Each structure stands twice: as C-alpha cells, then as structure tokens.
C-alpha cells in the first residue's frame, strides 16, 4: 500500500523534473536555432538532410525543418511560427511579400515538374503538357491531384485553368490531400496520372509501373524561393541562413545533390 504511494510519488517527481530539465534544455538552445518551414519536395527528396549539416557545422545554428505543403508553410510564416520559408509557388510568395510578411523573396534553385503515369497507359512520352492534360481530361483517365494547396497543387490547377478545363468534370479526378510522395504511391497503385516535381519523383522509392509521360515543357519550370519572415524572433540567424543558402557553398551542394544516386541533379541552383 505504501509502496504504491511511494512509486506514484517518485513517478510524479520524475515527470516534473524531466519536464523542467527538458524545458531548460530547450531555452538554452534557442539562441542557435531557426525554424524552417518548407515544402515536402525539398525535405522528402533528402536535399535538406544533405545540405543542412554543412550550415550547422559552419555556424552552430540548428535548422529545425517542418515540411508541409507550400500553402501550409506560408501560413506558418504568416502566423510567425516559422523564421524562414522555402517554397515553390510564385503567386503565393509574391502575395506573402506584398502583404508585408517578408521584405524580399530570393531565388534559390529550380527544377521542373513532370507528369507521371502508367508505362502501358494511353499517353506516350511527350513534351507538351497541354496535350497531355487534355487527353487525360477527354479520356477521363484517373488523375490524382495533391488537393492540399501545395505549390505542386497550385501549378496543376494553373495548368488546367490555362486549358479552360474544369478538372472536377472528369469523374476519375481524385484529390489525395497528401504529400507528393504519398500521392505518387497512390498513383502507382491506382494506375493513374499525377503531376510531380522532378526531385520527389526521382527520389521516391516505390514507383511501381509509373514512368514520366510528359516533361521538358517550358510551362513546367518550377522555381523555389526563400524568404525571411519579418516577424521572426531570430532575425540574425535567419538572415545568416538565407545568405548561406544563396552563397557559393550551398549552391554547389545543391547542384551536386542526387547526381551520384540518381544520375542527374534534382535541383539546379540559380541564386
């Protein structure tokens, strides 16, 4: 009886002290850290894991990455929860700057979007995304949309819009509401089509029978921009990070990332 009381007391004290300990630990680190809100493509592809250790080693600043869709990442910036935002949707980025949430938007790198689909599907490899989207629509082929307000999702909607098509009129148009990788996985399982950034496509491990059916169309270019959030509590760290990202060291790391593993770069630096 006493024993249980004792062990409960010990448990309680332990939990309190652990909480206090962890609390101290975090506040001590706060000086040397930033929160980077970014898109799933930069993180899930492994790019940030590849380049960030060099930055931390150089400056001692720990970059805490939260990878969500572009829309969600920008919202984190608007709420002041993130210090730096690295995303790929020019329209949302410009609005972010125009609304005063950041002073400037900087180019960092670009890659391109590709349309992927089943290798034995109705669409053969081509370089015209307009035709590709039109035949998906006309033939009512299965198309998996991100549906999550991400950069890729905005681009996809823009492409439909340019063709004056309403994708929802295709009964086989589905919205996944998930990250790029998960969406590719669904597309493979459902033998459908989807729009993906090249980086996630190349690094995604379970492609199934999917191949690229459309690429190298000029309208598929995919630039990434970085912005320091104006309301950041860590302006110096944040500025240091953005300067580093645009500097020669990071730019060459970006250029070499993935070459060994995938035979081609996943991102092209352009700061």
């Amino acid at each position, binding site marked *: 009886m*006493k*024993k249980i009381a004792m062990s409960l007391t010990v448990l309680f004290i332990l939990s309190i002290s652990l909480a206090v300990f962890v609390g101290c630990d975090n506040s001590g680190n706060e000086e040397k850290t930033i929160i980077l809100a970014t898109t799933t493509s930069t993180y899930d592809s492994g790019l940030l894991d590849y380049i960030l250790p060099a930055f931390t080693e150089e400056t001692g600043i720990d970059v805490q990455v939260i990878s969500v869709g572009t829309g969600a990442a920008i919202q984190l910036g608007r*709420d002041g929860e993130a210090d730096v935002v690295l995303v790929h949707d020019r329209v949302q980025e410009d609005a972010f700057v125009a609304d005063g949430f950041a002073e400037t938007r900087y180019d960092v790198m670009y890659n391109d979007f590709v349309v992927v689909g089943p290798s034995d599907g109705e669409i053969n490899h081509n370089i015209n995304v307009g035709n590709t989207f039109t035949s998906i629509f006309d033939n009512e082929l299965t198309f998996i949309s991100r549906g999550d307000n991400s950069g890729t999702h905005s681009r996809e909607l823009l492409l439909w819009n340019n063709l004056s098509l309403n994708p929802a009129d295709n009964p086989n148009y589905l919205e996944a509401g998930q*990250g790029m990788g998960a969406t590719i996985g669904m597309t493979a399982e459902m033998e459908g089509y989807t729009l993906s950034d090249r980086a996630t496509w190349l690094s995604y491990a379970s492609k199934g029978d999917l191949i690229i059916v459309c690429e190298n169309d000029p309208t598929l270019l995919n630039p990434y921009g970085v912005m320091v959030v104006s309301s950041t509590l860590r302006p110096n760290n944040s500025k240091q990070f953005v300067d580093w990202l645009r500097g020669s060291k990071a730019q060459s790391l970006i250029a070499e990332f993935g070459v060994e593993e995938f035979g081609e770069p996943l991102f092209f630096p352009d700061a």
Partner: protein
Amino acid sequence: MLTLQMTLLSTAMSCVIGIPLGLLLDKARFPGKRIVVLINRTLMAAPPVVIGLVVYLILMRNGPLGFLGWLFTFEAMVLAQTILITPIICGIVYTASQRSASNIRAFAITMGASRLQTQFLLIKELSNEIYFAAIVGFGRAMSEVGAIMIVGGNIRYHTRVMTTTIALLRNRGEINQAIFLGAVLMIIALIIQVIGGFLKRREERTDENI
C-alpha cells in the same frame, strides 16, 4: 529514445491527474455530475487531430499560451498527449470505482482508517483497474500520430518519434523501412507490457506475504 520519453512522461502525467480525478468523480456528489461524466466520456473518444489542432491554437505565438514558446517542441507533444490520455484514464478509474469504491470506503471507515489511509486502500484495491487504465493510456500515447504531427512538426532529433517517422518514410516511399520500424515499435510495446506485468505480479506476491 524520444518516443519512450514522450510516451512514459505523458502517461505518467495523465495518471497523476487522471486517477485522483476519477476517484473524486466517483465520490463527489454535485449537481451536473452527469454532464461532467458525459463530457469525460466524450473526451475519451476525442479525435487526436482535433486535440492537436486545439493545442496548436493555444500554443500559437498569438495564442493564450504562446508566450511559452512551446509550439514544435517536446513539451507541446507531451501536453497534447496528456490532454488526450487523461480523460481515458480518468474514465476507466471512474467506472471501476463506481463498481466497488463505496464498499471499500465503508470497510475502511469501519476499520477506523483515516481519510488518507482510505484513499490508499482504495488505490490498492483498484490497482488492477488502474494498471489497465495506465496500459490503455500508454498504448494510446505510443500509437499517436495525428496530434503530435501537428503540434510537434515532426522535426528531426527534436519532435520526431517513431510513428511520425513511419509516416515520413511512407511519404518517401520507403515502405520496407517503414514496416521495419513498425515492427520495432510493436516489439517495444511488447517489452513494456511484459515488464509491467512482471512488476505487477511481484507487487501482488509481496502483498500476499504481508
């Protein structure tokens, strides 16, 4: 092991809050008690994503507890977990004590026990149910993804636990690694149960000897 730290800490906190609350809920008589019980029952089934969102809003920089700077930290995850699990533990303890507590109390008072002693006796007599409540809470804490993804942000080395890693691996298409990690998680759960069961049996045996 961030996963174990988070799980154990939030289960412990929930027990510390939930067990007395459950006993109190049974003992206390007050108007509107049925409504409190109803709320408790509802919270037991609260979707983690909703709890995650609420905790997110509270911890946001502009939120009521924003000054703590807890969003996207270990503390935020423990807080969300504790809010999720406490009602479960409280509810189970309440149900258990409803069945037998009044008898035990009556017995203790007959034996001339003080109020504190009565409480301890109660906890001891209900130890099976309390153990069960803790196990359920622990399981919930360990398997949680939705809430801690929102409030923790799945930041590597800081707020990434095994379940959110599995979600990330799935996003990367590394299904094999994901399932491997899932198996590890199951084994940890098994080990914890074995240790818990062992401790409990030993406790019972020493009690019999007394």
